[in-house]
């Protein structure tokens, strides 16, 4: 394994930055991707989010550290593309705990993820129904 593989990218460096409200961010995403692509992505993400969170919960209760890591990583990446930076950041925390083999500390984060998801969901619905 090359050193790059163990290198963990971090958006936690921006931990203390307060992100702009989620609606605003999604609007920015819409600007850079165009309404069509944005709508497609929102639809996909609305279906994907709950599934992925449920899977994450399941893996966590199963104690499957590797699954936790992968699922958290994926949700982290997808969240970033839609503009859900806060959600992405929370996912990364879980990913890191999994990487460190400390998933027993993760449930608190998962609760935060669920709360954040509710907000993202609301915002997505709002943006998706503009036109």
């Amino acid at each position, binding site marked *: 394994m090359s050193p790059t593989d163990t290198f963990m990218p971090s958006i936690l460096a*921006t931990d203390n930055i307060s992100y702009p409200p989620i609606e605003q961010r999604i609007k920015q995403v819409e600007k850079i991707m165009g309404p069509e692509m944005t709508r497609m992505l929102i639809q996909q993400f609305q279906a994907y989010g709950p599934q992925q969170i449920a899977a994450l919960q399941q893996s966590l209760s199963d104690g499957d550290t590797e699954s936790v890591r992968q699922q958290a990583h994926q949700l982290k*990446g997808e969240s970033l593309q839609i503009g859900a930076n806060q959600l992405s950041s929370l996912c990364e925390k879980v990913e890191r705990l999994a990487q460190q083999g400390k998933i027993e500390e993760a449930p608190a984060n998962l609760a935060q993820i669920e709360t954040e998801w509710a907000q993202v969901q609301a915002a997505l619905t709002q943006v998706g129904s503009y036109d």
Partner: protein
Amino acid sequence: MTNRQVRILVVDDAPLTRGLLEQALLTYGYAVETASNGQQAIEYFIKHHPDLILMDTDMPILNGVAACARIKELPEAQRLPIIMVTALMEGEWVDRAYAAGATDYISKPVNLDVLRNRIHYILQAKHAEEALLDEKEKAQVTLASIGDGVITTDANGRVDFLNPNATQLTGWTSQEAKGLPLSQVFLVIDEKNQQPFEFPIQQCLVEGQLVEIQNTVLLHRDDKKRFAIEKKAAPIKDRNGEIIGVVLVFHDVTETRKMTQTLAYKATHDALTGLYNRPEFQARLKRLLQTPLEENIEHALLYMDLNLFKIVNDTCGHEAGDQLLKDVALLLQKNIDQFLQTASATLARLGGDEFGLLLENCSKKTALDMAKSLCECIENYRFFWSNEKRQKNVFTIGLSIGLVPISTLMLNPKSVLAMADAACYIAKNTGRRCVHVYQDSEEATWANKDIQWVNLIQENLEKDQGFCLFCQPIVPLQAEKNVGECYEILLRMAVAQNHLISPGAFLSAATRHHLMPSLDRQVINKVLTWLEKNPHHLEKLNFMTINLSGYSLSDPNFLETVKNDIENTSIPPQKLCFEITETTALTNFTDVLNFMTALKKVGCRFALDNFGSGMASFISLKNLPVDFLKIDGTLIKGFTDDRVKNATVNAINHIAQIMSIQTIAEKVENQATFEKLTEINVDYVQGYWIAEPKPL
């Protein structure tokens, strides 16, 4: 990448983002394949070689940066653009991505407009780069293919590049020479002074001038092999006209130069002997004549003609003649080189067996000494030749030299040469006195005289009374041998009414103009006719001797004609004795032997004339069926007082007796000689004291 659809590989572990990117790229008209981690990306690349990869940095299994680095290690990926997709504000990742060989990066969330433009731009750049590489490759192939050596330098005159031809000529490869000063790689020597030659590269670099150099020699790095080269150097300028280096183009002209030198040499030299040829000799003479003559500076011209060359050529063939000329050329050159210190000499073959020597800054005395030395050198030389039948011949040749001191009054090279030629004729014709110095009055008429002789001989040959015969008695010293009259037939030519001259005056002209066979036949015919008309003389006759020239013996028809003439008469052939000189016998040995053998069968007799005058060899004498030896007059004259001559005559006589050859002493001009000859038992005597020649 021309008209084919561009294929892009999208690599991301997040399915939504991956789908989004795929969708977008399809919309832009690209063909898209996807992979969900770095490992898959590598495998896909190896199999399908996409034109571009768009890859997430942060992936499980094998992250994007590592995958990028691995792909970039593959040679076929050298020019593959890889765009990395990174999360916002991942500063360190950006650096790592570039370090891994990524072409560019784009941040998440991906701005599709930016992505579209970036891909378009990168592909365009890749296209341009490939076109440029194609061009570069073409240029390099071109440089490798051309016959010229090409070296380029940077703006400081340091070597940048050598094409294969330049490598071959200098011994330096592009790699080895890169960065070295031009003078270290391009070793040039001035052809004229053999000094190292600094190529004026600064003239190119600073002044921007085109520099062209000739007459230099390039040295090879290792074996110091030399190449004659011609070269040009031109500054290389960039688009703004700034000089950024020099291109040096050169080619090997060794062969061309050699050829030029060969041609120049051939134009001025004689192919056979390697001496200068006639045109060059005349050109130098002309140049000399055009230079104003300074006080106390003298020049001289020698015109040299080989004696007896024709005999060698005629009897042994041209091959022998050529070899003789080569030998003589060498001998002359060697002798001249040894002789001259201050003067400058031009030795040339003027044609046939004629040589010319132009002596600049040479006094008349030195020239004369030189001429004598040359004569001596050629006289002492013996030419040996074996023919196909392994018959060996030894020739003594001689040299006749006409010497002309050059004065300012002589303006025409041709007339100087003609004077020298005339002087040479005199040298040759007046008893083979080796050197004759030209004197205004006499010589000019000599060449004309020669022609006059020839005309006279030819006229007389056609006339009945043009020639007449004299005879001089040959007297036996022993009484018991007195079995009849003996005499030598002598030729006289009528030059005016009742005025006859002896052959000494005209024989050389007759010889030079190939009239000897005709003259000899005339004599034989006259003798045969006379004998038939005078049977009482024939009855009393023991033998009469008739002189034959070597030139007649070399004449292919002469023998047959003479044989027929004799056989068509009733004259007993043993009464006819042919005299052939010793020199002729030695130099024309084969012809003489053939002739003697053939006429011996008929019954004729033979005498060897002037025996002892040259380098007589008793061994060769043994092989010739001769009946008489005529001891040369120069040995007889004064032999009573000269012990050496006395001993020589004695020896000749003694050996002749042993070989059963009779001896005839010529030029017996007083009683003392006669008595002495009687004493040593010479068989016959002949001479003015005995009896003068009288008309037949």
